[in-house]
């Protein structure tokens, strides 16, 4: 149907390797910087707080990289594996929205344990701020749904269905084990951190399965 399957239409191998190496460097810098940032307060932190901080760091790092792809055309084309001379308007818009939603998701995921660690608890105004960021992120997610094409909507639906099925099963098994005194009780934040981690892994899996590259 198109010449897209021809080897000649794909970006040169060195460009793909250079892009992967660049992304590895960004990941290394984010990981190193994040580790330095997270390490001092690590003692006494619950596993779910640590997990959500790691997720938050990853989300913000990815969000900044994706947002850079929205602004810097060659980077955006490399991310979208575009075979055109310019990044098409649809992908440019989606990269911008995805960058914003990743950063906002990272802020709420990382903000909550940091606020709790700083003993900012029982403060309705702070909670209202968290709710506002969450509402904003939900709004941007809705825009991604609205402005994306049917393929992106299908990927979102597949991820949602798969994560519901897996997490519901896992929740039942854990709850049953807990009820029968075979497993320790979990907090709702523990469940939230696991839900987010599983969702992120599944969204990557669905994107890979659908060839969303």
């Amino acid at each position, binding site marked *: *149907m*198109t*010449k897209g399957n021809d080897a000649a239409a794909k970006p040169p191998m060195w460009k793909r390797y250079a892009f992967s190496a660049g992304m590895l460097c960004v990941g290394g810098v984010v990981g190193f910087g994040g580790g330095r940032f997270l390490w001092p307060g690590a003692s006494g932190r619950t596993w779910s707080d640590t997990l959500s901080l790691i997720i938050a760091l990853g989300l913000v790092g990815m969000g900044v990289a994706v947002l850079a792809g929205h602004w810097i055309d060659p980077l955006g084309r490399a991310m*979208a594996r575009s*075979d055109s001379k310019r990044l098409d308007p*649809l*992908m440019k818009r989606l990269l911008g929205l995805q960058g914003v939603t990743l950063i906002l998701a990272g802020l709420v995921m990382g903000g909550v344990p940091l606020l709790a660690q700083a003993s900012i608890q029982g403060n309705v105004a702070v909670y209202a701020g968290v709710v506002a960021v969450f509402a904003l992120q939900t709004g941007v997610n809705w825009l991604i749904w609205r402005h994306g*094409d*049917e393929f*992106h909507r299908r990927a979102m639906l597949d991820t949602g269905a798969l994560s519901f099925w897996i997490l519901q099963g896992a929740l039942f098994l854990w709850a049953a084990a807990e009820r029968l005194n075979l497993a320790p009780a979990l907090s709702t934040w523990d469940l939230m951190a696991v839900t987010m981690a599983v969702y992120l892994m599944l969204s990557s899996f669905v994107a890979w399965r659908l060839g969303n590259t």
Partner: protein
Amino acid sequence: MQRGWSQGELGERLGVSRQAVNAIEVGKHDPSLELTFKLAYLFNLPVEALFHPDFTPQDIRDDQGE
């Protein structure tokens, strides 16, 4: 059907992403009816000329016992 368009160029004409065109080409995504008709109009072909199902009209009739 070859028009010399890249996946990105075809996607722009259809109003979808390059990823969507790629997924349709490799059979990982079945396009909506609307997108199917857009493809047919763009290539000036009947819908059935664009897709190759793994069954024939005769198979359907046989299944119905006709």
